[in-house]
């Protein structure tokens, strides 16, 4: 285990930026609270993406300019947002028809751990005195077409978050497709973690040392 080096790899903003590059034109996307939310502002120009928030809005826009907005127009993080032209409001059961029914193309979520088989843990530390709270995370991973994760490669203590098997309670088994960390972009392939791209100034060995399971290079699949 090595301690995190602040100067190496992508910043949080750059991680969001990198994830944004993979959001396809015309896709329907649900962004988790926190860093994933920031993906929206980095989607390359020329692409039109429609954002879903599970509390009942398709066509979510950015936060309102001033501190004003409408306290009844909020996102899943309960912060005020706007609605873009072409938006629609609906109730919670209809909102999860979109999620569970496989209509959302992409979601981007945070993670506590991801296993090499794509298991995601992002809702609970499993500590007995913690207040459990799951929200819509389990529904998203069960229903969305492509589940992507943005996370630091290691914890604050330097422990790997990409592991052979999650020690924290699962959000869902075998659900993650791609991971964006500060060090690399990694897919869940048929044989586990598979390097897609390295952050600038980071080499393969550096990432492998900080990954808690084997990491494969697929020829020609990264640079």
């Amino acid at each position, binding site marked *: 285990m090595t301690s995190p080096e602040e100067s190496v790899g992508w910043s949080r903003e750059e991680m969001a930026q990198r994830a944004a590059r993979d959001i396809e034109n015309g896709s329907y996307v649900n962004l988790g609270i926190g860093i994933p939310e920031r993906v929206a502002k980095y989607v390359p120009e020329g692409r039109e993406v429609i954002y879903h*928030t*599970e*509390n*009942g*809005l398709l066509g979510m826009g950015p936060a309102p300019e001033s501190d004003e907005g*409408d*306290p*009844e*127009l*909020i996102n899943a993080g*309960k912060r005020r947002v706007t*609605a873009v032209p072409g938006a629609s*409001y*609906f*109730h*919670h*059961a209809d*909102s*999860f028809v979109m*999620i*569970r029914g496989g209509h959302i193309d992409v979601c981007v979520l945070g993670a506590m751990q991801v296993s090499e088989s794509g298991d995601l843990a992002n809702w609970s530390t499993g500590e007995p*005195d913690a*207040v*459990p*709270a*799951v*929200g*819509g*995370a*389990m*529904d998203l991973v*069960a*229903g969305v077409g492509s589940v992507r994760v943005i996370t630091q490669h290691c914890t604050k203590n330097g422990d790997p978050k990409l592991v052979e098997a999650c020690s924290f*309670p*699962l*959000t*869902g*088994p*075998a659900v993650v497709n791609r991971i964006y960390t500060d060090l690399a972009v990694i897919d869940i392939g048929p044989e586990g973690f598979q390097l897609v791209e390295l952050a600038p100034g980071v080499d393969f060995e550096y990432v492998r040392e900080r990954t808690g399971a084997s990491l494969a290079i697929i020829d020609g699949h990264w640079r």
Partner: protein
Amino acid sequence: MIDKQVPTPAEAVADIGDGAAVMIGGFGEAGSPIELIHALIDQGASGLTVVNNNAGSGEVGLAALLKSGQVSKLICSFPKSAGSSVFPELYRDGRIELELVPQGTLAERIRAGGAGIPAFFTPTTVGTSLEEGKERRTFDGRDYVMELGLTADFALIRCSHADCHGNLVYNKTARNFGPIMATAASTTVAQAANIVVVGELDPEVVVTPGIFVDRVVQVENPAHESDLVARGEVYP
């Protein structure tokens, strides 16, 4: 002649008895029927089971109802909030029971309850600790768990416009759980900022048809939870 309007929130919730199951609309503050919740606090019914996506914030509205000790069980997807320590304290002290339900399953269970569907299968929670105690079954090669429909004695919801037949429309993301809770409760009480004459709501845009609503009560300038919390207000 059909007139479901009642004069005050107090009268609208007067018959909620001890031990009742009460669905309360809202996702965070959007759609939260604060005035009805406060009337329920004043009324004092105890041993309630409350269904809501969250556990409130500050010490007003839902959080105040929890703090009052009237709620013995909360059915909920996300009982954490930046702005409140009420639920965590009750929970750690073992003074409230929590049934944690994923948000989409919560919504679908309520919708099923209102639709006369006693149970359905969903992929959500398969392979997680929240699957425990549920029946698992395979359809077309994929695993699902069985979930039960959820009904309640009362639903307290908030909308923007209502008529005296109980037809409702909502404001933006305040719609959330209101329309489905209205279908799943024996008695549905809606607070509306505006009550309009029957016929004024376009039949194409009514979100909750009056058949699902038993009482409407006008609350002309409903409080916003975030304002109350920002001002440090505590109810009662």
